[in-house]
């Protein structure tokens, strides 16, 4: 089920909110004669149970069969967490940790990577091993990493194991972030699973964040996605159209992904959870290193804490550090997709990070140049990342690396295309406002302006009123787009 859909916004979400607050309140009242503590526990248990059940419904809406895989994952990680917590020796703790890692990565490997390896094996050996052709369970990369963060943190002693399977299940399946992140670590929500508060201010802030995210997704990201689709189907591309595509995709993926993260964070707030931020205006970065401190922060920090640092990080010899860096970025690329273009995308960043490390003079360039260089690298990287989009006929023989190479050649004028044509000018004119709004929105300008006005004595009240008008307008306009029937799947669903 998509957040940006009528069934979610007008059927599922009102139902879960009504059940969550009303039923838990009634249960709390029913347990009140047994004391405040028991009443509160009962209320929290009910809330977690409602979240778990509705989240399973949410997940099953798109993947009815894979709900059982999800339930299996919950059971497996919960039992492993318990076993790690109860183990008397470090050795047995490690055994159960390894069990959880091997089992979960095996499942991930089979569903996501098996065909990639089989296909490459066939190409290398000339054999014809049959592909498994398993449909990828939605969000499997997200929830696998979330669960791994749980068993690893329990192993490290950072957090006690969760004995309540309902609370644990609610954490794993929590629908606001189940299929598209942010990757929420158990340690960040452990306390909130046991005890959380709801205030009107939190509800307001959560709603505001959700609606802003919805607007980013529907009004900006989906609009630009239409332009990208038109580009891919156009019989009359040009060099400029290729650049519109490349820059458009940078904006599309940012607003799509950050919009979804905003919605997840906003919904989390409504239900009493404080999820970590996932984006911090990444296109303001002055280096690739900074970019990855601002883009998909939950993934970057996951790899840092659970792969890079355990491998030794940068506190090792140079050769080992190079190895660590390449492993992390190879895995980052692979996490995004079972395809060579994703792996190359990851490796590209490894190379750039190492270049920045080994050539400190880059850091001394004027900030304009550094921003330009960063945006250029990111742009090229995303052309590689999105090479699959060229396969409009869904051919099995499609080679994303060839497609990416063709895209890059055409961008730089080596594709035999005119610089501009009537079709390109038409679509530039048509999408100019959306692109400009997106570029401005990708900077902190609007947020900083809103904050300054909000805090000022003169405009504070007017800003608050404008905030309401904006929220209502976003709800109505986004509903209008959804009713008009533009299908808008989230880009990161395939991960």
């Amino acid at each position: 089920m998509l957040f940006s859909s009528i069934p979610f916004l007008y059927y599922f979400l009102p139902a879960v909110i009504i059940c969550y607050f009303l039923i838990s309140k009634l249960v709390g009242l029913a347990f009140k004669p047994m004391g405040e503590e028991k009443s509160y526990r009962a209320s929290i248990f009910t809330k977690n149970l409602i979240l778990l059940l509705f989240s399973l419904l949410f997940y099953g809406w798109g993947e009815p069969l894979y709900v059982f895989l999800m339930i299996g994952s919950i059971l497996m990680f919960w039992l492993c967490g318990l076993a790690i917590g109860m183990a008397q020796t470090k050795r047995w703790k490690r055994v159960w940790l390894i069990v959880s890692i091997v089992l979960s990565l095996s499942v991930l490997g089979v569903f996501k990577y098996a065909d990639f390896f089989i296909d490459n094996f066939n190409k290398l050996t000339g054999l014809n091993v049959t592909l498994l052709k398993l449909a990828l369970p939605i969000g499997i990369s997200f929830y696998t990493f979330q669960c791994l963060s749980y068993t690893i943190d329990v192993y490290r002693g950072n957090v006690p194991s969760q004995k309540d399977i309902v609370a644990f299940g609610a954490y794993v399946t929590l629908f606001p972030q189940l299929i598209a992140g942010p990757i929420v670590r158990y340690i960040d929500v452990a306390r909130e699973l046991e005890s959380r508060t709801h205030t009107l201010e939190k509800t307001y802030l959560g709603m505001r964040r959700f609606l802003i995210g919805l607007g980013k997704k529907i009004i900006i990201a989906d609009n630009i996605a239409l332009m990208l689709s038109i580009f891919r189907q156009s019989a009359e591309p040009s060099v400029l159209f290729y650049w519109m595509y490349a820059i458009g995709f940078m904006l599309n993926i940012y607003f799509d992904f950050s919009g979804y993260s905003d919605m997840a964070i906003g919904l989390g707030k409504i239900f009493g959870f404080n999820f970590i931020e996932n984006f911090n205006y990444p296109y303001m970065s002055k280096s690739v290193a900074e970019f990855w401190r601002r883009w998909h922060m939950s993934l970057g920090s996951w790899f840092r804490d659970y792969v890079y640092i355990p491998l030794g990080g940068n506190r090792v010899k140079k050769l080992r550090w190079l190895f660590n860096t390449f492993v992390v970025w190879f895995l980052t690329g692979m996490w995004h997709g079972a395809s060579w273009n994703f792996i190359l995308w990851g490796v590209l960043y490894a190379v750039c990070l190492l270049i920045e490390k080994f050539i400190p003079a880059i850091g001394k360039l004027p900030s304009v140049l550094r921003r330009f260089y960063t945006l250029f690298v990111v742009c090229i990287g995303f052309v590689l990342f999105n090479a699959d989009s060229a396969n409009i006929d869904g051919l099995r023989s499609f080679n994303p690396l060839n497609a990416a190479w063709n895209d890059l050649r055409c961008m730089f004028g080596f594709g035999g295309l005119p610089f501009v044509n009537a079709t390109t000018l038409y679509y530039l004119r048509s999408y100019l406002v959306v692109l400009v709004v997106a570029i401005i929105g990708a900077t902190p300008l609007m947020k900083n302006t809103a904050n300054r006005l909000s805090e000022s004595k003169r405009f504070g009240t007017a800003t608050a009123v404008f905030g309401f008008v904006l929220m209502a307008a976003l709800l109505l306009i986004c509903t209008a787009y959804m009713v008009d029937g533009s299908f808008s799947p989230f880009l990161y669903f395939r991960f």
Partner: protein
Amino acid sequence: MKKKIQIISAFLVIALWFSLACVAWLQPAKKISAAERRPLAQMPSFGDGTEDKPFTDLFDKYTQDQFPLRDTFRQLKSLFHFYTMQQMDNNNYYVLDGYVTKMLQMGKNQETQLLLNLDVFNTVYNKYVRPFGCKSYVAIVPDKGYYMYEESGHLAPDYEKLFSLVKEKMPWATHIDLTELLTLDDFYKTDTHWRQENLVKVAEKIAEAMRMQVTPLEEYTMELIEKPFYGVYYGHAALPLPAEKMYHLHSQILDECTVDKLEPVLDENGKMTLEFAWSTTPSPIYDLKQLDSEDMYNSFISPNTLGMVRIKNPNATTGKSLIVFRDSFGSSISPLLVESYATVTLVDLRYASSEDLGRYLTFRGDDVLFLFGTQVLMETPLN
């Protein structure tokens, strides 16, 4: 104060959201969208889902189709799209001076379809027209975009290429050029079609090429249809456009013509057989029942499901027949061509198959006219 406003805002937005949700849950489902001229999805049951279209997809479609104030929300989106986001088209529809059209483009698929359709015409010519010595004519009706795109700056097909392909592939027909004769004013603002009351000049040009006669404009009376007309593009564009007036032309000859349609033959139990025959109960030239239907334009001669309709003119001065291979543009102009013909047969190759024509038509030296719009030629497979 700011906090108070925030809390009130939260309440108001939640109230708005929950109100829409309640109406969405509780309002009875509508069957048809008058604006979009299509049936609306109904609530599916679990067993309705298939592998290609699971229950969840059907439910998604139902919630979109049945959302409260659907037409208003579609209008809101269209207005926001055009005026706030300044986009040139909305789902490929655009407006110029109140005229709405679909932005057509002649890509590879459209060119392939055009060539395939021209092949169908060649099949008809080789199988039915040439062997019987019929004279053949072709008139291509440009879509509204032809008269709009240069001023509006929208994309358009390569019309020059389109018309030259038609000429190239149909060398056996006399080509009647309508492009200079028509203007944007000759079309409905909110519909694909042209206005019948402006078509006498077109009928005269076609008749001139065929060396036949048609009723001059001054001999027609215009009947204003009381019900306001909203064309097919009104729903597609989803903009607050005013209704239009529709007129039917009448003349003594036209009013005495009758229409019959090719229909399935029923057996003694009233069940359809595989045989077809011309209906025995003729109808008047205009189907007034269609004025209450989803598409008022169907009040001009519209195809039945078998795609063959025949106009009989009891006042014809000759025994000649005209066969018009046409799309819906032919519905409103064909009545204006009847004066010199005893029979005008309309064949819509979107429904009728060119292979079966010999079973129901005779081509004994008749005049044959191919009258199609550019959009159908590029986008619709003919049989």
